[in-house]
């Protein structure tokens, strides 16, 4: 059965001939008490805190990671010394795909797009001199997320920090990999089951840890519309919630540690409307569908990142301006933390200068524009409220469509998400090609000439050193302990018990990411991608 994706606002309206001027008629039947409420109370349209940034600024959390664990450790310390308030770790492609640095498929990729972590020894070097009781750490990792979490727990233990003190976030959202980013390893069901293992473990042992960062970002970057990004992400959230409840967890025990991660794209008001609508929908889902009792369980907490896909290789300095506008939209939309992209993202990993300017962008926004001095300043705007209503309505329609298919996993089996996203991406490309959507410096206002900004170079040396270290580790570790730990992991995976304890055990036995993934692959199988079109 082929499901036609919901056309949506954009496709229906196209580019309006004259700008709409929203007015009272557009908000017929709009009840501000029901639709907005107060900031910090249901349905949280206006934000999850009563005083928003008056009480506390958002967390400026810049994603960093490249080269070896030592290189990234240096960058972490640099960012902390410049006033950053939380760490965020980018891993290299082999690590993201659950492969070791010495895997044949890793050739040329080690440390290139993030930091290479293959073992507990690497993780130890990544956080040397950083007290894990004092920082909060976000890790952008998915298929092998449970393994990296195990490493983090072990490093903290070595520092004398118990798991209940640890603060941070694991991205850990495998569903969006099936929809958009393609960094999956196991089939959808065992993959989700592994996510639930981490939720269950953290619910019992790491109450301050955000277990899943349910991500729309990658879905949007792959081409989804704002409403699709919103609906697909919340549908994934529904799936994790349902599965956790099926596992026997109380919704109020884990829901407060689910967080969300949205893209902030160019369409300024649409993005703000999307973020406002996200809170309204989620609060209704949690309260009315899952019967969460505690207010905190109804709140959608979010991290936002500016849209990498909007940045251009041509005239890269223009990216600074794009990012600044997108960051403003994120803040007006009420985000809890923010990553601003570096201007050189389309050319290479951020240079130190580009990374600093990206952070300064947020600091200027926070301390000079005074936008923090009003809570939800756009609340009550005819235009913004109309748009918030429309996006919410469209998202509910998509959520219903997914429910009608039998839920997210059934829709993955049919290739529904991939098809919708590709169709939207194609439609957008068509708008750009036909001149309907301008891209400054690419379709219009073009300049010829070389790009002249400093670029970070990663040397091949990183890979050689990393591979040599890994070979040494494999040679010197206790082979008996290592084999026993992997046997236990295989057994636990086969029995269907929570694998977290076995992963912690294997981490301490110096088993590598690739070895643990392969052990689980032997039990769970490997996924071939499902229907593509």
């Amino acid at each position, binding site marked *: 059965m082929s499901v036609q994706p919901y056309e949506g606002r954009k496709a229906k309206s196209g580019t309006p001939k004259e700008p709409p001027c929203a007015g009272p008629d557009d908000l017929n039947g709009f009840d501000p008490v029901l639709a907005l409420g107060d900031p910090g109370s249901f349905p949280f349209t206006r934000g999850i805190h009563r005083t928003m940034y008056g009480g506390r600024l958002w967390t400026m959390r810049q994603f960093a990671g490249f080269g070896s664990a030592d290189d990234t450790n240096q960058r972490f310390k640099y960012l902390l010394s410049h006033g950053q308030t939380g760490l965020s770790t980018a891993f290299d492609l082999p690590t993201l795909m659950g492969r070791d640095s010495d895997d044949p498929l890793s050739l040329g990729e080690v440390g290139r797009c993030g930091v290479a972590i293959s073992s507990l020894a690497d993780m130890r070097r990544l956080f040397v001199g950083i007290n894990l009781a004092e920082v909060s750490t976000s890790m952008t990792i998915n298929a092998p997320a449970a393994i990296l979490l195990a490493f983090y727990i072990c490093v903290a233990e070595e520092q004398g920090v118990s798991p209940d003190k640890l603060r941070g976030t694991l991205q850990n959202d495998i569903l969006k990999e099936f929809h958009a980013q393609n960094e999956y390893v196991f089939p959808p069901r065992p993959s989700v089951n592994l996510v639930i293992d981490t939720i269950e473990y953290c619910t019992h042992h790491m109450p301050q840890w955000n277990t899943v960062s349910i991500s729309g970002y990658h879905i949007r970057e792959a081409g989804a519309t704002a409403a699709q990004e919103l609906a697909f992400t919340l549908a994934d959230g529904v799936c994790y919630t349902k599965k956790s409840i099926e596992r026997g967890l109380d919704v109020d025990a884990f829901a407060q540690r689910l967080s969300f991660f949205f893209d902030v794209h160019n369409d300024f008001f649409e993005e703000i409307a999307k973020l406002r609508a996200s809170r309204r929908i989620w609060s209704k889902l949690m309260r009315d569908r899952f019967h969460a009792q505690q207010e905190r369980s109804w709140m959608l907490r979010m991290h936002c990142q500016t849209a990498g*896909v909007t940045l251009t290789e041509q005239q890269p300095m223009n990216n600074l301006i794009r990012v600044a506008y997108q960051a403003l939209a994120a803040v007006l939309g009420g985000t809890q933390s923010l990553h601003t992209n570096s201007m050189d993202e389309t050319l290479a990993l951020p240079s130190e200068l580009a990374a600093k300017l990206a952070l300064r962008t947020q600091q200027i926004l926070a301390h000079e524009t005074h936008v923090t001095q009003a809570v939800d300043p756009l609340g009550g705007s005819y235009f913004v409220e109309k748009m918030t209503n429309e996006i919410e309505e469209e998202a509910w329609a998509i959520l219903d469509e997914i429910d009608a298919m039998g839920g997210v996993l059934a829709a993955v089996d049919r290739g529904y998400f991939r098809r919708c996203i590709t169709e939207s991406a194609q439609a957008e490309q068509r708008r750009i090609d036909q001149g309907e959507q301008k891209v400054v410096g690419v379709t219009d206002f073009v300049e010829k000439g070389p790009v002249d900004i400093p670029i970070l170079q990663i040397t091949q040396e990183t890979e050689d050193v990393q591979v040599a270290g890994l070979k040494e580790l494999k040679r010197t570790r206790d082979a008996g302990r290592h084999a026993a730990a992997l046997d236990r992991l295989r057994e636990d995976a086969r029995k269907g018990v929570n694998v977290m304890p076995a992963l912690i055990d294997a981490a301490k036995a110096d088993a590598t990411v690739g070895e643990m993934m392969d052990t689980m692959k032997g039990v769970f199988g490997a*996924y071939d991608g499902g229907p593509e079109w």
Partner: protein
Amino acid sequence: MSKTKYPPRVLLAKIGLDGHDRGVKVLARSFRDAGIEVIYTGLWQTCEATMHAALQEDVDVVGVSLLSAAHMTVMPEMLRYRKEMGIEHIPVVLGGIVPEADHPKLLEMGLAAVFNPGSSVDSIIVKLRELAAGHASARIGDVRTGYEQGDMRALAKIITAIQRGDALDGWDPPTGNARVIGITGAPGVGKSSFIGRLAKRLRLRDRRVAVLAIDPSSPITGGALLGDRLRMMSGEPDYGLFIRSLSSGGGAGGLSPAAPAVLKVLDGFGFDFILVETVGAGQGDVSVRELVDHTLLLLMPDSGDSVQFSKAGIVEIANAFVINKCDLPGADSTHAQLLSSVGEDRPIWKASTIRDEGIDAVADWVAALQ
């Protein structure tokens, strides 16, 4: 835009671990809509397997999409394999994030074109058509000798010629003794992955296997998106396995009008088994029967097909059934429903390509077919 009398064939590939496929998928669909036959080989491919696919598919252009900054490593490797396999007449183009400074080096190396994120889809299509027009497909007479000597390049070219309406020039390929097995089922039941595994099993028994994957093409533009191959390929090309994607060219019952002649030349080439994957058009898709010796019907759990079990059509003509994806919930009840509607005379297997289970039993059955 000048139109040739047949759709150009373009292979689109991603190489390495980079999973960013937004660009390549948009291009694949846009090319199809512009009347091009696109063979998309999916993620995580190697250079060798990609060029090997280009040889078998006898494409007019190979397009590589790279966002991993590995182009200066990957592209020379691609060209090396192209030379090694003796298909230097096929132009190779590159798209993705490629710094301007590298363009001249890449063109000098032998690439036909390099496209950037700023290139419009239309401008890419114009270039592809131009390259395809320059890549003349051989006439059958020209490659018959190669075919007779067992050269796969010649086989690939003959199939192209047949599809493009080149008569066999009075040539009658030798008769082999290939068994032809049609594999059909509704979209999404996992036919391609299953065939990929089945072919591998038959290869392990040292049989020569050809796969013919037939996908629908647009009756209006003639374009097609041939994505079956991506489920069948592995990074290591198998030189005893021939896979060819064929667009239906608007043929009835989801079959290509060229299919009978193509099967004839595959048979004459000396394959032991030819697996024909057809668009599971469902109940009406019975024309496959006229082409093949045996038909295998693939189903999946809870696919709603159970309603159709009792209806005439494909279930009647199938010689055997596979309930694929039996790792999904509902496999047992689907099995029971099928059993009650078709009885016990015909084999029913349960298989899961994800877990690599249940394929051997089917391979045993195929291997024993006469």
